[in-house]
């Protein structure tokens, strides 16, 4: 049962990455998450949107859409673009792989996987990519929990 839903769409500008993670965190706050849980969600959204900004529309801009579903103690997030897509999803899920020549570590997806419970990627070349994230609240065991 979905208790609440939010939809957000914006151009793939770097300036919108901060807006996206802040907006999602504000929406998720109604479930009363812990600070570490909220920080992990912000990190995952930042990485997901950054991937769309950096990789989806090479040399141009396009739409990025985020849908957030809140249930009792679970947050589900979809980050979708209509860009170039990913030819080999399994390849990009490996640690250290990046298709960008800039100064990037290529660990964005690994960070996402560390911050949420489930990650799924659907992508088609030339049609775009959708990143599905799911995090259950109330199960935090990360290092931040002891801060």
């Amino acid at each position, binding site marked *: 049962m979905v208790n609440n839903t939010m939809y957000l769409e914006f151009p793939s500008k770097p300036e919108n990455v*901060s807006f996206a993670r802040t907006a999602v965190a504000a929406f998720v706050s109604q479930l009363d998450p812990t600070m570490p849980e909220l*920080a992990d969600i912000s990190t995952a959204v930042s990485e997901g949107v950054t991937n769309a900004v950096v990789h989806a529309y090479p040399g141009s801009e396009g739409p990025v859409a985020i849908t957030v579903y809140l249930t009792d103690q679970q947050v589900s997030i979809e980050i979708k673009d209509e860009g170039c897509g990913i030819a080999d999803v399994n390849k990009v899920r490996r640690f250290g792989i990046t298709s960008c020549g800039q*100064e990037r570590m290529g660990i964005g997806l690994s*960070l996402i996987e560390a911050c949420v419970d489930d990650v799924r990627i659907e992508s088609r070349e030339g049609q775009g990519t959708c990143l599905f994230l799911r995090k259950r609240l109330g199960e935090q065991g990360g290092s931040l929990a002891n801060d």
Partner: protein
Amino acid sequence: METTIYTKGSWLIVRLKGELDVATVPAARAKVEQALQRQTITGLLVDLTNVMFMDSSGLGFLLGRYRRLVENKGTMIVVGAQGQVRRVLELSGLTRIIPQKPTLAEAMVVMGEGK
């Protein structure tokens, strides 16, 4: 993002304030790179005490500067990482590569040894 840079002996001290992501890293990187052009600089201290958020763009920024320093036989210290910033540093494994100090005072001890 505010970037404050000053020197102490052969060390470059970089104080960052704000959030380090794909939008803010390019300006910070440009300022630090310009300051590192000085041939007398052999150490870089990056103070993250006032950085409230960092993602892999920030990690790339730190690793890039670290590689640059190491290639020139220099050294680098990261200071003051806490909360989300510390967690991201730990998850990435960067804490095992770049020396970390909780406070500027503790980093100063290392800087004194490095002179």
